[in-house]
């Protein structure tokens, strides 16, 4: 058993996801209290280059054809063997469509303690989780043995988990991964949108409060006046009022605009996760208790149907003068 903190790197189609860097930053804090090293665990096929920039002390790389694309069962098989053998102090995985599929299975099979939804590591080295829609924080005791932890973004900036120095890489040897019961058939691309919201500087976001598709034109007008683009939270995309290319959130895109104007969005964690890079968040919502007001820079408890047209007009006037 070592005091090392392992971070299972999440990557999709040749790109390392931001959550991996967030976890590396958290691992750095944890390793500070456990006294071990930060070790990135990279599973893939011909994916060594992805290790570049990982803020880890060491990288463990496992290569197998079955790991070319994410498969929950293949990842579980490899990680189970690895953890049983190496027994680190903590293993961090993302509370995501990649990590969450694997973490519980690995922990349960190896009979390891498991804590989820971790946001930060407290001063005493204990994980602090965010639950109940962000309304409750839970500090739990870091158990003995190898602890499996799943992390949510928002507690650490991804930059803190990056490094320009290349860490030493150890290529693991293990028996080839066998036939899997869950296999990838194909990827389905998100609808090719005309815009990539992740690259836009000004975003006008609409949520449930927009009420119906026709009211989108209010948001479009405002976006146009500002020189930005309309995006949406999940309920709007689920209804089909905007394509998935405009979805901001856990299952959509993470965005980092200068301005994010949220109209009728309550601020559910799945949405807020994707806004950690926003410079100025302004929220308009009729409900003064909406969680989004806790993360926004400016807010107004107003009816968007009254405010948005007025705002659009004033911006047009301001730009004209």
């Amino acid at each position: 058993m070592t005091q090392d903190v392992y971070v299972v790197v999440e990557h999709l189609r040749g790109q390392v996801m931001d959550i991996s860097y967030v976890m590396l930053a958290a691992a750095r804090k944890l390793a500070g209290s456990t006294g071990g090293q930060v070790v990135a665990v990279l599973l893939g096929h011909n994916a060594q280059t992805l290790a570049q920039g990982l803020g880890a002390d060491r990288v463990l790389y496992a290569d197998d054809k079955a790991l070319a694309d994410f498969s929950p069962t293949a990842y579980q098989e490899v990680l189970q063997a690895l953890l049983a053998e190496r027994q680190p102090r903590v293993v961090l995985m993302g509370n995501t469509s990649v990590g969450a599929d694997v973490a519980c299975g690995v922990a349960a099979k190896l009979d390891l303690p498991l804590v989820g939804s971790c946001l930060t590591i407290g001063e005493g080295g204990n994980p602090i989780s965010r639950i109940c829609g962000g309304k409750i924080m839970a500090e739990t005791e870091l158990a003995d043995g190898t602890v499996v932890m799943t992390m949510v973004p928002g507690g650490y900036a991804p930059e803190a988990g990056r490094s320009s120095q290349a860490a030493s890489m150890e290529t693991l040897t293990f028996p080839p991964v066998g036939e899997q019961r869950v296999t990838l058939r194909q990827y389905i691309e998100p609808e090719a949108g005309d815009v990539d919201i992740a690259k836009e500087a000004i975003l006008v976001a609409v949520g449930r409060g927009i009420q119906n598709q026709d009211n989108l034109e209010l948001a479009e007008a405002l976006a146009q006046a500002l020189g930005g683009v309309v995006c949406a939270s999940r309920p709007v995309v689920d209804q089909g009022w905007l394509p998935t290319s405009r979805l901001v959130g856990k299952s959509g895109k993470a965005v980092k605009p200068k301005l994010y104007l949220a109209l009728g969005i309550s601020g559910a964690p799945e949405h807020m996760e994707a806004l950690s890079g926003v410079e100025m968040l302004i929220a308009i919502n009729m409900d003064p208790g909406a969680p989004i007001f806790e993360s926004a820079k400016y807010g107004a408890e107003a009816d968007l149907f009254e405010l948005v047209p007025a705002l659009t007009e004033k911006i047009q006037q301001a730009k004209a003068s």
Partner: protein
Amino acid sequence: MNIVVPVKLVPDLVEGLSVDQSGTSLDTAWMRLIISEFDDHAIEQAILLKEAGGGQVVVVAPDVEGVDDVLFTAAAKGADRLVKLDAQLGIGVDNHTLARALAGVIKDMHPDLVMTGVQAHNDLDGSVGPLLAAFLGMPYVGYIAGVSAGDGRIAVRKEYPGGLVAEMEVQTPAVLGIQAAAKPPRYVAVSKVRQAMQTAKIEPAAVGEPDPRGAPKILRLFQPEPAERATMIQGNPEQVAAKLVDVLREAGLV
């Protein structure tokens, strides 16, 4: 196809939450329980599969306040069997205990598919779905937004960030973590639920001793301080709009 849907009831956030005197659990005085949103989608997805290709849907839930209504509503939507775990699993139980209890009951049902919500908002030790899969010895895939069954194969749509979707093939028996059903959960008329209360039976299922091994020990629960709460702009819409334009101008955005 035999589909089992375990569901969890969680605190209804509409009622507000607070921490009790001990500081390590939630105050239940004003708490009301509601079915976890993703579990509701799991029930819907199971019913859709049954409607498309036949089979049986079994809904399993722990015995907590309001569970009967949840089960009868599921029956009114088309669930065939309703199973209630006996009373040792009150609210506040961890997912490891619950998953072990469910595994004990579900393995004897020999399901083809087990579908449950990909997560619940009060999950602190992982989610029930993948834990259950490990205890049942079945493969697990989560973040599913669409399931179809045809010629002995199960195809699922797994959602990744950025709108990317992966179509995956799953060999049964397997556990699926549902993010969204192919259609939003249907409305059930009150009269149908009342009818289900007359005709459907809830079967009790005995579970062994609770086994929380693996779940963390809670040191404290607290409400987050709204660190920098937003500067609220007051006034009528005209005034608010004017102030917002000032803010934007200062930030160089207008």
